[in-house]
């Protein structure tokens, strides 16, 4: 592929595929103001069902498409009925978290059924290419364009001329008023989830055929791209989602043409951040409406925190402190070291997501910044490791806050999308900025942990070091929460308009929260770098961000003790029960789902 026309065709075809995902997201956002993070998982399921149909059942192409659409629609209906409908009267964050949990469960089920190895998905179409102007086009390109156009047409007819379509549009514009016209919004939700899932599933099938390969990593990518396209077009705006998708496809394709393949996603996420900052309602939103987000206060489950007496905390800390003096196995210490590192990340996230209400889905980026800074400081500038880790913390605090600052004016779901994108951007910059980060090779030979010239090699010393750091950070954070500053944070979370009316500067307090949280996460990343001795751009990924969020929700949003308890529980329990690694993510997903459904305030309650 070489000519600009080729890149344009490729961009439009890929854009068509994104559109199938994004239109579903837009429909769902329209009727239920929910960003469905499980959309990519349905796309993944569609691709694998397609694989079964093509490779094992040898279905002809039209039948394959129908099978995939129907099967994916059924998955969508199940998600709506059992995953989301029970949460209807729950806090606003609940369905969002539920879709994240559902996506973990679905992805992992696919992985367990089909193994994580990529599979070839033959396209069932002759492999010929026709000359068109200066470029070429193949039958698969035409099929994708055809499916895209047909779906758009069917959707238009449905929304414009069918009774259910009218109900969908009315519900999207005013849910309560639609109910007062006699519209059964549950049926509308069902219809929308079914349609979105069918489109998403077919999209997965087509992508698999286009690249002749499917693997389980497709899921998150598809969700991210769909969300980007949808937000660019204006959340909930169906035609906007189509145009946003085509635009995204073109931007990516031209970006690849100029800079190379590894820049593809970078352009996607930069586009998203630019749109969120300049036009948070999307390119095509009319200026008249405010973003349909509630006050952040209603976004988080309110509750009474469980009171734990100080002596009990002291006793617990003492037990963990003297644990290595007893004959415990290396394995137990190792597990707990991981828990302490995750605990630091959770402290950071519980402050940002719980105390000040900015639900971040890109927290692993702060780990990465801290880890790379600390590793490079100690390797290239020979800074002592102890200082390098602090440097990592400071860099995460500064750079993390700077990167996230454009999203300070956003609320609710949009904060989550922006942080997710910023997290991806950090990882992609690390991948592409080879002169500093060594790109895809990663950084190896990172010196081990040391303190005042003494190397910490034994598990016992590493255990004490990481535990002590976590406890100090927790004490600082506990102090912070009882101060005037902590109160201001919570005021902003509970009602940012009222907080502003009382003279609190949202930007200043959000910055302070991210500075403090960034430091804790950066220190955690720094310690991890010296512990692992090798890191690359994938060491700290979105899965870790979501794991941290699960920990925080398990402990109770904003709850310092809860963050540490959650970390020990989620890292420790799977070890105790010797659960195989590939089932762990499944369990995290299920834990998240159960929490959201039955105890949204977490074990110890939100503060």
């Amino acid at each position, binding site marked *: 592929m070489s000519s600009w026309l080729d890149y344009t065709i490729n961009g439009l075809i890929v854009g068509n595929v994104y559109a199938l995902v994004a239109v579903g997201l837009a429909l769902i956002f329209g009727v239920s103001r929910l960003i469905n993070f499980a959309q990519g998982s349905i796309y993944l399921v569609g691709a694998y069902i397609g694989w079964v149909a093509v490779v094992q059942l040898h279905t002809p192409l039209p039948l394959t498409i129908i099978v995939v659409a129907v099967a994916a629609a059924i998955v969508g209906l199940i998600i709506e009925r059992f995953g989301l409908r029970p949460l209807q009267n729950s806090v606003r964050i609940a369905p969002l978290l539920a879709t994240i949990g559902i996506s973990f469960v679905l992805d992992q089920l696919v992985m367990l059924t089909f193994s994580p190895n990529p599979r070839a998905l033959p396209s069932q179409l002759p492999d010929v290419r026709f000359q068109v102007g200066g470029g070429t086009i193949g039958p698969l390109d035409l099929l994708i364009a055809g499916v895209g156009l047909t779906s758009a047409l069917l959707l238009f007819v449905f929304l414009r001329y069918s009774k259910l379509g009218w109900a969908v549009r009315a519900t999207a514009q005013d849910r*309560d008023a639609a109910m007062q*016209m*006699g519209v059964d919004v549950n049926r509308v939700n069902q219809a929308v989830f079914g349609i979105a899932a069918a489109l998403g599933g077919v999209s997965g099938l087509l992508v698999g055929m286009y690249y002749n390969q499917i693997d389980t990593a497709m899921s998150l990518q598809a969700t991210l791209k769909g969300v980007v396209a949808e937000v660019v077009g204006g959340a909930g705006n169906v035609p906007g989602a189509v145009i946003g998708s085509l635009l995204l496809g073109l931007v990516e394709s031209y970006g690849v043409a100029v800079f190379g393949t590894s820049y593809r996603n970078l352009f996607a996420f930069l586009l998203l951040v630019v749109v969120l900052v300049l036009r948070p309602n999307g390119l095509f939103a009319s200026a008249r409406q405010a973003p349909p987000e509630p006050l952040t206060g209603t976004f988080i489950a309110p509750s009474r925190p469980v009171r734990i007496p100080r002596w009990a905390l002291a006793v617990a800390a003492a037990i963990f402190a003297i644990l290595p003096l007893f004959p415990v196995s290396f394995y137990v210490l190792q597990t707990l070291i991981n828990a302490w590192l995750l605990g630091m990340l959770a402290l950071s996230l519980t402050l940002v997501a719980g105390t000040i209400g900015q639900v971040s889905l890109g927290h692993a980026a702060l780990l990465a910044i801290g880890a790379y800074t600390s590793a490079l400081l100690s390797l290239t500038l020979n800074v002592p490791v102890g200082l390098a880790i602090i440097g990592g913390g400071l860099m995460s605090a500064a750079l993390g806050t700077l990167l996230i600052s454009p999203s300070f004016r956003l609320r609710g779901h949009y904060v989550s999308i922006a942080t997710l994108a910023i997290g991806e951007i950090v990882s992609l910059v690390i991948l592409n900025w080879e002169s500093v980060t060594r790109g895809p090779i990663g950084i190896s030979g990172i010196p081990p942990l040391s303190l005042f010239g003494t190397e910490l090699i034994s598990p016992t010393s590493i255990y004490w070091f990481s535990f002590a750091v976590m406890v100090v950070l927790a004490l600082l954070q506990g102090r912070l929460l009882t101060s005037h500053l902590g109160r201001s944070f919570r005021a902003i979370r509970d009602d940012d308009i009222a907080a502003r009316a009382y003279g609190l500067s949202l930007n200043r307090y959000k910055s302070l929260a991210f500075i403090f949280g960034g430091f804790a996460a950066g220190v955690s990343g720094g310690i991890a770098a010296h512990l692992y001795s090798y890191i690359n751009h994938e060491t700290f990924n979105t899965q870790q961000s979501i794991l941290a969020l699960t920990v925080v929700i398990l402990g109770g949003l904003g709850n310092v003790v809860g963050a540490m308890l959650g970390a020990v529980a989620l890292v420790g329990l799977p070890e105790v029960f010797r659960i195989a690694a590939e089932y762990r993510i499944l369990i995290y997903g299920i834990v998240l789902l159960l929490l959201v459904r039955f105890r949204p305030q977490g074990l110890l309650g939100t503060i």
Partner: protein
Amino acid sequence: MTASTPEPLLALSNVNTFYGQAQVHFDLSITVARGHIVCLLGGNASGKSTTMKIILGLVKPRSGDVTFDGASLVGLTTPQIVRRGIASVPEARRLFADMSVRENILMGAFVRNDREAIAQDLDKMLTLFPKLGQRLSQRAGSLSGGEQQMVAMARALMSRPRMVVMDEPTMGLSPLYVDRVLELIRTINQEGVSVFMVEQNASLALEIAHEAYVLQTGKIVLSGSARTLKDDPRIRDAYLGGAEAA
């Protein structure tokens, strides 16, 4: 209730409503007789709009009963209640802003399936609200407040309701439209539709209502026929500028 009074169309009896810990209604009892216009008066935060929501099933009472035509509405969903024959003109109109005026009016007939009769009713609405004729294909959000109120009323009537509930139908309208709306409510009522309306503007409401209730912080403090209430000094003091007169 004595045997001589006919069974009311709508009855709220001893309704208690809570938002979390806060009680909104205290033993609220209201009846709407068949063919009557009944008005619920009250200031801000008196629980008026919540009363509407209780009738429509958008908010559930903690105790008490709501009956329509003798059958309880408690436990029914909003769409089910609409199908029983209650249509609504919500506060601030709540039109489907991005749908056309025609689509908005037809959405009112969502619970019906008789295509031809629906088309006839649409024509009937255009004679009742002649101004909407030229606006049919326009976006509903682009209409003026008064025109939107017309659309909202036409939309409510399209379900051929036995009762219409209206939340502050004159709010934010120009005086010209206020008169027009009140006249229309009377017309609707004369065609046999009962009306339950919530209003802040007592003098206007009492002009067209048969009965009225006065709600204060969730309790009915006064009720009776509109004629007697109009002359009641307490109403005059509270709503009709009695303080100035005194």
